[in-house]
């Protein structure tokens, strides 16, 4: 690879990096307090329906071993 091609590639790469960073710097952001409040309200809204958080009654557990009854 000629040194000219190599330096053109480096310039292209550097320019891509600058473009990418400008794009990332320009995005709209919200405050952490607002973002946190939203995460919390999502948790609260869905907590009731979270089986790993609330637990499931044995009768409704699809994984439960189905044992047969024996009459002694």
């Amino acid at each position, binding site marked *: 690879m000629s040194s000219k091609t190599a330096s053109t590639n480096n310039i292209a790469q550097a320019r891509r990096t600058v473009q990418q960073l400008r794009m990332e710097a320009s995005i709209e952001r919200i405050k952490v307090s607002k973002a946190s409040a939203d995460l919390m309200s999502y948790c609260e809204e869905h907590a009731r329906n979270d089986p*790993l958080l609330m637990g*499931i009654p044995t009768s409704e557990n699809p994984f439960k071993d189905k044992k047969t009854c024996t009459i002694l």
Partner: protein
Amino acid sequence: MDQTFLVNVFGSCDRCFKQRALRPVFKKSEQLNYCSLCAEIMAADGLHENETLASLKSEAESLKGKLEEERAKLHDVELHQVAERVEALGQFVMKTRRTLKGHGNKVLCMDWCKDKRRLVSSSQDGKVIVWDSFTTNKEHAVTMPCTWVMACAYAPSGCAIACGGLDNKCSVYPLTFDKNENMAAKKKSVAMHTNYLSACSFTNSDMQILTASGDGTCALWDVESGQLLQSFHGHGADVLCLDLAPSETGNTFVSGGCDKKAMVWDMRSGQCVQAFETHESDINSVRYYPSGDAFASGSDDATCRLYDLRADREVAIYSKESIIFGASSVDFSLSGRLLFAGYNDYTINVWDVLKGSRVSILFGHENRVSTLRVSPDGTAFCSGSWDHTLRLGWAWAAKREL
């Protein structure tokens, strides 16, 4: 919930005027919209006036500084402080409820079927097994021509699985219940990378697959034709994991790699829209928070972290001085309140996502936990390990015992 990061538009390119997916491009202080081809041409142009390699590099450095400043301005509080008013969870008592035995070597990956019952797992010895988790029966098994099948995924329809690893490919196998049919015969090679396949996932349908590779790229493929639809370049080293955003939130996915970066990508344009570099070592696992507004990561630096996409920063670290081994795999419970994380010290730690504290520690595996997923309806979680087994756990109602 609306996302406020930059969404790429489809329209007329400001340079060639063709109808394409556009990305913003900055010329001096002006913002234009270019298609990816014109953006590349512009990047590869000769030097502009007053521009040298050194000036571009120093501009990059100052932009990085500006990015950190902008992020810091909005850092008015910590998540765990806001979460102080939320009720604490109390300690959970945990144990394994069911063990799936059958693999002859390290389990490397697993994925649930949308039917919330079946799951697929892959192993170092080349075997891929489909299980019925209710009965522990093996429904299908196929032997791959390579060892270290590091990635596997269940198709949304439940009718196929995808897998790959050291063969550098991702292959799709239709699942058939015909006993006379050889599963391996219907194998379809879809993705081709130049290094190992580390992760794969179907998109919303059986028609497209997203892959991550040791070659440092991610790629989107058409299953039927094997055609490459989009490639994602930007990681500086092996990509180890990926996760698709929940479908309501649009066409993005997050990836994590050996370059310690987590990157969020726009699937249509191939562009990275946000990047986070706060981990101190390889990122082994990434998973979206159920609302799609945040994602968690697990790393060899022994921490898990939560990144909020709208605040554009890390908002929580889940760590303890006593935890010194890497986290290999993370997943959220249905409400997002719990984060399950599997570690290389054979344990699974369960974290309170909001408060940042650990609520439980699960023992049971006899070697590293390599993979962990919560079932689609949040009823159970499954972990796979180098001890050749997969283990299932769930929670009882009365005593909140896991």
